[in-house]
């Protein structure tokens, strides 16, 4: 059995974060604050740097040549950009992508492989894998065919497997980049329900185009917009606030579906 988790979900604070690719500024001066255990939706039109912002948090941006990140990112008060060990960081911050991307391995190996890579003791691996599959509601569906290829699963199942793969490393923060946009409506609902069940245990930052979805799931919302070629944060507030009582005219227009 996996060890009892004695920690609580951390707070995630971005302070004037900017992401630049060479000459091109993707997003600048982005500030937001996610409370422990909360789900914050990151909304806004395409191209305003929302995905880039996610990439800065788990430092995937480090691997992109010519990419520079400015500002500070605090995970429970600790500056992410000062960390030396990326392996630990990426264990603590899990990421799920828009297109489901399970590895071309068997279902169970998709989970065992990362566990092996992160040196989890052999004895614990199976148990953690099973737990992760239960957490995403896949266990009953796949327990009879764990050795079958993951690519044989449906789109929605693959995405849930990808979420399980992130969960299996016992992260504390989840970064979700439009996790439902490549799925059909039925699978989308299932994944949404899953995400709702994860709130509280993890601090979640989710990029989404779907305002209705944001309304359903989020505790707080950050609205991004494009100013010229560069993205910026327009408003960041509790969910109710943003939708009922937007402080910024762009927010009002966006939420009313007029712009973007």
């Amino acid at each position, binding site marked *: 059995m996996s060890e009892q988790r004695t920690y609580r979900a951390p707070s995630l604070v971005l302070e004037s974060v900017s992401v630049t690719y060479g000459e091109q500024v993707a997003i600048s001066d982005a500030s937001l604050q996610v409370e422990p255990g909360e789900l914050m939706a990151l909304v806004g039109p395409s191209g305003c740097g929302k995905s880039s912002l996610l990439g800065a948090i788990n430092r995937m941006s*480090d691997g992109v040549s010519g990419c520079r990140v400015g500002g500070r990112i605090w995970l429970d008060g600790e500056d992410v950009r000062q960390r030396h060990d*990326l*392996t630990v960081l990426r264990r603590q911050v899990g990421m799920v992508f828009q297109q489901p991307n399970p590895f071309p391995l068997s279902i169970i190996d998709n989970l065992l492989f990362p566990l092996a890579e992160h040196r989890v003791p052999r004895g614990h691996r199976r148990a953690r894998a099973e737990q992760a599959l239960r957490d995403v509601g896949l266990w009953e569906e796949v327990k009879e065919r764990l050795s079958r290829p993951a690519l044989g699963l449906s789109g929605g199942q693959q995405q849930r497997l990808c979420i399980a793969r992130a969960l299996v490393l016992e992260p504390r923060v989840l970064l979700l980049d439009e996790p439902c946009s490549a799925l059909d409506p039925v699978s989308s609902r299932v994944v949404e329900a899953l995400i709702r069940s994860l709130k509280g245990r993890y601090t979640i930052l989710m990029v989404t185009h779907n305002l209705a979805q944001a309304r359903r799931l989020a505790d707080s919302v950050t609205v991004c917009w494009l100013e010229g070629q560069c993205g910026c944060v327009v408003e960041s507030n509790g969910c109710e606030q943003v939708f009922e009582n937007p402080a910024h005219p762009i927010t009002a227009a966006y939420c009313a579906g007029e712009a973007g």
Partner: protein
Amino acid sequence: MITTSSLPLSDRLLTLVLRLCGVLAALVLGGIVVVLLVQALPFLINEGAGIWQSTWQPGQGEYGMAPMIAGSLFVSVLALLLAAPVAVLLAAWLRYFAPRLRRPVLAGVELMAGIPSVVYGLWGMLVLVPWINQWVPPGASWLAGSLVLGLMIVPLALLVTDAALGQLPLRYQRAGEALALSRVGMLRRVLLPRAAPGIVGGVVLQFGRALGETMAVLMVCGNVVQWPDSVFAPVRTLTANIALEMAYATDDHRVALFASGLLLIAVTGLLLMASWRLRGVSHG
């Protein structure tokens, strides 16, 4: 980047091995040039100018390669003149006039491209040379070499042209169809000119390979060191010369052959770079 201290040992080892492999390729090229230079340089310094003479008599210290350089050039140029138009036009025809034939013909052409040069040479000896001999003896000649070499060039030139044409945006073709322009006209005025840099680049590459070809020309050219007075005269190429004489060459003779190898590599290298320029390939 991830700092190296956090990478597992296996990764650090892997990175090292991979870097070695990458360096190896450069080492090989450098090695070839260096080895040839080391052998040929003393010779080139002493007898350099002699290369351009017309008398090749190694026994008497005469190392005039001019007739053989001419032989290589003449055989390759004629082969190119014969093969390139056929290959380019055939590729265009397959794409725009007979698209259903394209896949099977390209498959056959790929097979042709894989046939060893000795087999082409063998056929040349068996059939082509005797045939030419009936018209103008001796048969083994510049013409025979160019015909065989031309046949060898066609498959690759065809594939290169097909690739270049395939890169053209579809809208050109569509526009032509919408305006009911003749396909010949489209080809002549629009498609071929647009694809020309890629096609010419590819053809230049084939020219380089033709210059470097050894076995087929060795088998059908007659191998007489002389300036040809007609297409029916036997010639010897630089490559064939190396193949024929290396076995028993000693000292200066041997070194002269290395020098001719150096010349070959220099010329093919230059042709390759010209081909890059034409095809817009950036290799620094």
